[in-house]
């Protein structure tokens, strides 16, 4: 069935370092992929989206490339900031249903 896998549950980094959060998916359809960010006690907000193979998409310093050959949509940033501390979800849309990964909690330390 359709699913999204995020392998890192917790990531702790020092401010200024690069980060990559992994996301792989499984589906028989041609999907839309998304990254959502959720700060404590807030609703998830869309960070990135893509349905185009091998095209890099960027927003607020974060970027990701959808690779259909490896079913991946990893999230990256070259230099994390304290304000990036949050819960990050990778999600995949199959028409009416949005499948979320288990989430990665990113903590950025001074």
């Amino acid at each position, binding site marked *: 069935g359709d699913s999204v896998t995020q392998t890192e549950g917790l990531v702790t980094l020092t401010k200024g370092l690069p980060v990559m959060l992994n996301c792989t998916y499984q589906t028989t359809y041609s999907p839309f992929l998304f990254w959502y960010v959720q700060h404590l006690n807030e609703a998830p907000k869309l960070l990135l989206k893509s349905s185009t193979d091998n095209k890099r998409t960027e927003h607020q310093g974060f970027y990701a490339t959808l690779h259909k050959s490896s079913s991946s949509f990893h999230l990256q940033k070259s230099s994390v900031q304290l304000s990036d501390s949050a819960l990050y979800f990778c999600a995949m849309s199959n028409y009416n*249903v949005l499948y979320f990964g288990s989430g990665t909690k990113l903590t950025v330390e001074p």
Partner: protein
Amino acid sequence: AQTIHQWPVAEIKAVGSPLSLGCTIKGKSSPNLYWYWQATGGTLQQLFYSITVGQVESVVQLNLSASRPKDDQFILSTEKLLLSHSGFYLCAWSPDWGGEQFFGPGTRLTVL
């Protein structure tokens, strides 16, 4: 601009009591509407979706029901709450199929 409002902001309810949560979207006609549940610190699970008034489809069974009485309104309810219903309930909308969904502020439910 579209705005999405959820009510109440938070609820504390007893096991076995009824529940009704609401969601309203303004500024968009005929949106696709969705309900999600999130355990504290956990992932989001889609519960229901609706593409038009009066039509609601269930994604998972959690002893909850949903209704769409108006184009801009989506209601989540149950007649008997369980402890496992505690969590964060989020309403979302999207302008079309397969695209991004935009989330409301959520309702935090505690069942005691």
